[in-house]
């Protein structure tokens, strides 16, 4: 079943140039979808369309049966679609972790006892129970971003949108976030829409959409996408390093096989040369 339907959506900030142009696709419940594009490709605009922070100029987005253009259903939509933004420093509202996670449930009028339960659950899911009473200022970037995810989880969303949530983190923090998101998707069936410009982050995805100048330039599974090396390059993105090296090897006359995505596959391909 589709949880999000994007139907011929366009969006413009200034009525002259469209940031998103006539985009259509469906996201199935429980799917892990990646949206990738260079800076300024319209991917962050798209992120804000999913939970009605923006409403499409043309077309329509249907979230779990509700159109985001319906103003009176705003909170229903935002309860269903949680967004984790790029800079965790700018999304945390309280000076104590548990107070911050309580913010969402408080807003929608959840009863006190249940808020406590939701905080327990959210912190456990992101593995931050130990920091319940800490100040977010003392946490690392990855930990702060996990708190931001917990803050979204406390609203019990069906879909989580990650709007470049790993862009400001160090490799360790990035890995922490990717692991948490993978777990949410696999174990709790949360639908994930990951927006990124890191090619290696789309490898987990069931489906990838490549955005360029506000339009979908490519779509498919990660393996299908990475076959299009030349096209990817032409729209300002790069292949993951492993695929890039494989391509260079082929150019140098070393016959490694096609469609290499990560380091393990590249290792295997070189071993097979024997």
């Amino acid at each position, binding site marked *: 079943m589709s949880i999000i339907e994007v139907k011929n959506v366009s969006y413009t900030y200034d009525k002259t140039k469209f940031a998103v142009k006539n985009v259509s696709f469906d996201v199935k419940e429980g799917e892990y979808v990646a949206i990738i594009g*260079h*800076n*300024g490709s319209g991917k962050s605009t798209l992120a804000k369309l999913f939970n009605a922070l923006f409403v499409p100029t043309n077309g329509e987005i249907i979230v779990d049966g509700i159109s985001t253009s319906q103003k009176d259903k705003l909170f229903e939509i935002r309860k269903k679609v949680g967004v984790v933004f790029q800079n965790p420093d700018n999304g945390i509202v309280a000076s104590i972790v548990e107070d911050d996670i309580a913010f969402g449930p408080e807003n929608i009028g959840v009863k006190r006892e249940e808020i406590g339960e939701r905080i327990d659950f959210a912190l456990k899911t992101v593995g931050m129970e130990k920091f319940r009473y800490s100040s977010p200022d003392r946490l*690392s*970037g990855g930990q702060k971003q996990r708190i931001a995810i917990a803050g979204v989880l406390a609203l019990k969303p069906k879909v989580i949108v990650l709007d470049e949530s790993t*862009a*400001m983190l*160090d*490799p*360790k*923090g990035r890995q922490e976030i990717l692991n948490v998101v993978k777990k949410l998707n696999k174990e709790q069936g949360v639908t994930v829409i990951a927006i990124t*410009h*890191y*090619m290696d982050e789309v490898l987990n995805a069931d489906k990838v959409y490549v955005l360029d100048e506000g339009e979908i330039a490519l779509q498919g599974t990660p393996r299908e996408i990475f076959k299009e090396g030349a096209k990817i390059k032409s729209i*300002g*993105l*790069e292949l993951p*390093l*492993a695929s*890039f*090296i494989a391509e*260079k*090897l082929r150019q*140098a*006359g*070393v016959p490694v096989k096609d469609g290499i995505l990560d*380091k393990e596959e*590249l*290792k295997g391909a*070189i*071993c097979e*040369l*024997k």
Partner: protein
Amino acid sequence: MRIEVENLTFVYSEKSKSLQYKALDDISLTIEEGDFFGIVGETGSGKSTFVQHINGLIKTQKNCKKFTVGEFDLTDKKCDYKSLRSKVGMVFQYPEYQLFAETVFEDVEFGLKNFFPNLTQEERSEKVKQAIETVGLDFERVKNKSPFEMSGGQKRRVAIAGVIVTRPEVLVLDEPVAGLDPKGKLEFIKLLKRLHNDFVKTIIIVSHDMDLVAENCNKIAVLKKGKIVETGSPKEIFCQKNIVENSGLDLPLTAYLQRELEQNGIKLNSDLTVDNFVEEVKNYYCKIKGGK
């Protein structure tokens, strides 16, 4: 300018027993003129504290035996920091957030005015123009633009122009590619290499990106909890398994492959740059094919 450091220790909040925190612990290090030097380590390992010493943003504490940058002695209280800073440029993380002037021209000119107040208007214009063109922007088109109207990548270029406008011999960059998309990242590295071949003699980068470091640096220092674990070429650092793992770092892809392939009986001996790695694999391939 050669940078020599002996026994540098730095403690934050030295006076307060409860708050004090040792960020650097007995660091000794030499960075030669001409190096493309990488400083790596986990967040909180003291990398930023160290590099901020190089242009005197953080002053050495008493117990430091030696800290010289070219002819400047940083352990000397009378050190001429202003002159030092005109020769050692420092680019912080997200440098675009330091822009402030109404036009790109004025912003780039800022450092020049501060360091060399005696230049004539023409001399200044010429230098600003050079700096803006060096970072790959069209001087005529951008000079009167507000920096705040530009895209993220362009803003970063303007900020870099504002640092290199004094033609520093040493350029220190803290996480220079953070937040850039893949294309922006590649272009930025190209810019750094161009600068390194031009007037910037020494480049020092702090980075979490091991692939970038292995590809571009000729020497690397690994920091952990304020101490230097090891210094050496990328090959010396990344081909010793324990150094990288004990310091909480990732391996560059080429180093990882080389290590794994060796366990499968394929011995490669590249310097860990992509081109050299491809070359080595090709040689290996020709050898086994020739043998058949």
